[in-house]
């Protein structure tokens, strides 16, 4: 009490009753515990729940990073923002008695107000004389007493910490279960939750091998999408689905090899394929694109060396390439798009039937495949050797987009055998006669599939009469591949002149030959032509035969003309009006046609007669008189064919004219008959003249032959006389080699002459049998009686034994005899000639004929000289080819 009296002005506080104080402290403690628990549990729940959200979302789709980030922020925000706020609100905001009293007042308003009043009373600082401490204490006690019976726990706000606890436990359990039971998925989700912006791929229970997220498919073509399930996939769904854009889904069952193969119909628009396999979800962008095509393809053919041909580039449009065996074929192609790869399959096929000589096995070798070099849009196949086996080359390619080529390119390489060349002779008959000095011209044409190397001609002679001479045998190169750019065809005009090539009269078989480039390839030959190179006598005999034929036909033409004449006369006898009747007109028409036909025949005969005259001129041994007669006959035939007979024809045509009066018709017919009469007379004259010429011709051939035999004997004698000093009295063995050779040649010449004389006798016999001319019989008898042929043969032996003196005498003797016989034949001819030629007489016409004959002969001779010059030039050029084979 003393203490209180010493300080009367100091305010005095009354403490809360202990019981009340304890009650409030307990209440506050309980409040704080609950609210802190709520804050912590809520934070944990947020974290666990956000993890589970990510886990859950990942199970149905690949949760994007942004979503995962949002979930994470949402989850952690409970811890970071909500918990502090909650603690601040409930812990910091309810630390004092008045704050607690207000909270209690929410549940117990009266009590709360009293408690709040007690707390207020406790804080009063008025002077002791203003407020009685005892009163305040009594009031407090009173309230404490009242509060003592109350349970403040009931005044606590509604608490959710138990719910939160359960929620946390539940989420924890779920998360724990995820981590325990599906640890890969749980950990993957945890990683993706903790680090939402990392590129951790989403874990799926169904796991596929890696595949491209973009694919290029063939435009408008159905395509497959194959996805392989990973071996370590936790889930192996038996079925998967895929959908192209908004199109109906396509299903695929898991096959034994772990593949899902989705087949899509052809697509034209770019879109995505959405794939659902188990929990795996994928999207692939698809770009339909046209397949790459080959825009150009060419083969580079390298021929075998022996062909000496340059490389050849062939554009391949067809699927077959014929190539000569032993070549190589390279391929070059340009695609429509840049290429990634290309390959070639070479499949040899069974042997071609056209290759019988092939040494290759009939069974084809196994196919081979090789990859090809590609550069941008081009592909290159290396050189493929061409064997006897045909081969099928299959080219395939893939572009940089992975698309295979639109259809593979197949090329069949057909091996071709280098065929033998072919060669022809053109521009000449299969058989031909000619004089030694003549030149025949023809063409030689050689062809070969891969080039003609050389063409030429070969000849083989054959004597038609026994002789010791060696038959001609030779060849002439005409042209080679260096002469032309067209290797497959080589041609040359040939001027074949026997005298230029030193070929004596004989039968000659000529063949053209061609060589190609095949090593050891044999020559190819043409069909042969046969040329009979005639002596002048033989030629004259041939002309004689031709002349015989022409005369025969001329006589025939005259007979026809006579028949026409007779019929025309019959028509003339008809009465005038009847001549214009149909029947007569038909007959006149037939007469006109018959006349026209005969005119044609006459023209043809005239042409042949002209040819004969030319040949006779060429022969040079037919006497001038005979030639003149031939020329006259020819001229008359030409007049008949070109002038006289057409006039008859015209008159006959006029007589049929319907506009003519009967008198006029008759007059025309009479005119025709008159003209025809002249024609017949002229024909008769021509026949007579031709027959006379023919007789002279034939006789002159004997004369000439006899004269030539005489001159041969003279030349033998002359040659022996020239060498008489060195050969007389010598044995053949002792002679100088040059003289020995001379003796041999002269002996041979004698043999030939003996043979000629023998033929003259034989021909005379035949001639007499036909003409029955006494002179020929006499001559034949004389010759046979003289045994001239045997005598000349005997003389040959003498010459061979070098009995020179006697040989000279005998040669001279027989030369004289032969000339006598020729003169004997000439004698009667002079007389006959005078009679035959009497009609024409000598005059300016004869001069003209003679001039023309001379000119013809000159032209003929100059033409021969020209042809032989050409033949010589050809020979000279061929020498160049021999020198440089």
């Amino acid at each position, binding site marked *: 009490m003393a203490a209180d009296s010493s300080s009367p002005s100091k305010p005095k506080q009354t403490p809360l009753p202990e019981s009340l104080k304890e009650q409030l402290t307990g209440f506050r403690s309980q409040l704080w515990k609950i609210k802190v628990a709520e804050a912590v549990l809520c934070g944990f729940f947020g974290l666990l729940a956000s993890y589970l959200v990510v886990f859950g979302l990942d199970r149905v789709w690949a949760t994007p990073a942004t979503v995962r980030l949002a979930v994470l922020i949402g989850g952690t925000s409970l811890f970071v923002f909500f918990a502090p706020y909650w603690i601040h609100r409930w812990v910091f905001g309810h630390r004092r008695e008045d704050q607690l009293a207000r909270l209690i007042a929410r549940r117990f308003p009266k009590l709360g107000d009293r408690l709040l009043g007690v707390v207020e009373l406790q804080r009063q600082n008025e002077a002791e004389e203003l407020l009685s401490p005892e009163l305040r204490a009594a009031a407090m006690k009173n309230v404490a007493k009242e509060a003592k019976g109350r349970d403040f726990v009931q005044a606590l706000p509604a608490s959710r910490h138990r719910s939160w606890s359960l929620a946390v436990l539940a989420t924890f359990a779920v998360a724990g279960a995820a981590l325990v039971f599906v640890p890969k998925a749980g950990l993957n989700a945890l990683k993706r939750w903790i680090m939402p912006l990392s590129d951790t791929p989403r874990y799926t229970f169904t796991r596929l091998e890696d595949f491209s997220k973009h694919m290029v498919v063939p435009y408008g073509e159905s395509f497959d999408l194959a996805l392989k399930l990973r071996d370590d996939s936790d889930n192996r769904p038996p079925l998967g689905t895929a959908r192209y854009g908004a199109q109906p889904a396509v299903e695929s069952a898991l096959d034994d090899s772990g593949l899902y193969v989705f087949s899509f119909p052809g697509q034209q628009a770019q879109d995505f394929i959405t794939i659902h396999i188990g929990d795996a979800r994928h999207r692939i962008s698809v770009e339909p694109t046209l397949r790459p095509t080959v825009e150009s393809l060419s083969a580079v053919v390298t021929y075998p060396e022996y062909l000496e041909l340059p490389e050849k580039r062939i554009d391949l449009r067809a699927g077959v390439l014929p190539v000569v065996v032993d070549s190589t074929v390279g391929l070059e192609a340009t695609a429509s798009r840049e290429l990634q790869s290309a390959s070639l399959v070479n499949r040899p096929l069974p042997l071609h039937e056209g290759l019988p000589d092939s040494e290759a096995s009939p069974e084809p070798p196994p196919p081979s495949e090789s990859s090809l070099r590609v550069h941008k849009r081009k592909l290159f196949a290396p050189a493929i050797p061409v064997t006897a086996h045909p081969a099928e080359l299959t080219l395939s390619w893939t572009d940089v987009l992975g698309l295979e080529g639109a259809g593979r390119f197949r090329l069949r390489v057909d091996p071709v055998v280098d065929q033998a060349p072919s060669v022809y002779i053109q521009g000449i008959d299969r058989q031909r006669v000619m004089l030694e000095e003549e030149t025949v011209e023809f063409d030689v044409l050689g062809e070969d599939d891969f080039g003609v190397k050389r063409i030429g001609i070969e000849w083989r002679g054959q004597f038609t009469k026994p002789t010791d001479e060696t038959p001609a045998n030779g060849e002439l190169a005409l042209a080679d591949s260096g002469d032309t750019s067209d290797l497959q065809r080589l041609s040359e005009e040939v001027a074949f002149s026997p005298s*230029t090539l030193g070929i004596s009269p004989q039968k000659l078989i000529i063949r053209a030959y061609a060589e190609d480039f095949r090593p050891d390839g044999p020559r190819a030959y043409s069909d042969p032509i046969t040329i009979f190179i005639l002596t002048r006598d033989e030629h004259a005999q041939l002309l004689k035969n031709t002349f015989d034929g022409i005369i025969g036909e001329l006589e025939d033409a005259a007979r026809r003309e006579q028949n026409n004449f007779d019929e025309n006369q019959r028509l003339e006898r008809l009465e005038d009006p009847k001549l214009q009747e149909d029947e007569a007109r038909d007959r006149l028409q037939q007469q006109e046609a018959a006349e026209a036909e005969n005119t044609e025949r006459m023209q043809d005969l005239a042409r042949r007669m002209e040819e004969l005259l030319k040949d006779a001129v060429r022969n040079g041994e037919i006497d001038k008189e005979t030639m003149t007669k031939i020329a006259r006959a020819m001229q008359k035939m030409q007049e008949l064919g070109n002038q006289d007979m057409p006039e008859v024809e015209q008159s006959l045509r006029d007589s049929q004219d319907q506009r003519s009066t009967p008198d006029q018709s008759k007059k025309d017919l009479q005119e025709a008959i008159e003209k025809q009469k002249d024609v017949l007379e002229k024909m008769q004259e021509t026949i007579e003249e031709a027959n006379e010429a023919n007789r002279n011709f034939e006789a002159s051939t004997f004369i000439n032959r006899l004269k030539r035999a005489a001159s041969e004997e003279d030349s033998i004698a002359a040659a022996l006389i020239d060498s008489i000093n060195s050969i007389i009295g010598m044995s053949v063995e002792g002679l100088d080699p040059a003289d020995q050779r001379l003796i041999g040649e002269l002996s041979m010449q004698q043999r030939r002459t003996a043979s000629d004389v023998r033929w003259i006798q034989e021909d005379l016999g035949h001639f007499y049998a036909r003409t029955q001319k006494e002179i020929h019989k006499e001559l034949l008898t004389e010759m046979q009686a003289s045994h001239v042929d045997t005598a000349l043969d005997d003389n040959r032996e003498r010459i061979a034994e070098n009995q020179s003196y006697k040989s000279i005498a005998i040669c001279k003797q027989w030369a004289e005899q032969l000339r006598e016989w020729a003169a004997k034949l000439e004698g009667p001819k002079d007389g006959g000639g005078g009679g035959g030629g009497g009609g024409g007489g000598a005059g300016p016409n004869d001069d003209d004929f003679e*001039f023309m004959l001379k000119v013809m002969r000159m032209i003929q001779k100059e033409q021969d000289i020209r042809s032989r010059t050409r033949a010589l030039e050809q020979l*000279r050029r061929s*020498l160049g080819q021999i020198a440089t084979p």
Partner: protein
Amino acid sequence: MRPGIKIITAALLAAAMAGVGIADEEAAKEGLKKHEVGSQKLAGEQDELSADVQDLIEEQTAEDVIGLLEEVEEIMAEVTTSLDTFDTGGPTIAAETEIIEKIFEAARKRSQQSGGT
């Protein structure tokens, strides 16, 4: 193969090849001779024909025919010289053709004159 045999084989081959070469050379020589002889023979024939032309000129009275035949004779002399020097080439053949043409021309002139008289 032993070296000795190799040498013999090579020698034989060389000899064979040389033989082929010689044969070709001989054929060329023979052909050349044939050409020369033939050319000279033709020169002779051309000369003879030239003499015939000369005879024919003497028989003629018409100036233009004589003129043509004289030209023919001249060209024939030219051809004879060419052939004598073994020139059988294009110019010689062309000259021969000209001869033929001119003889034809002379014949035509002559026949025209005969027809006219």
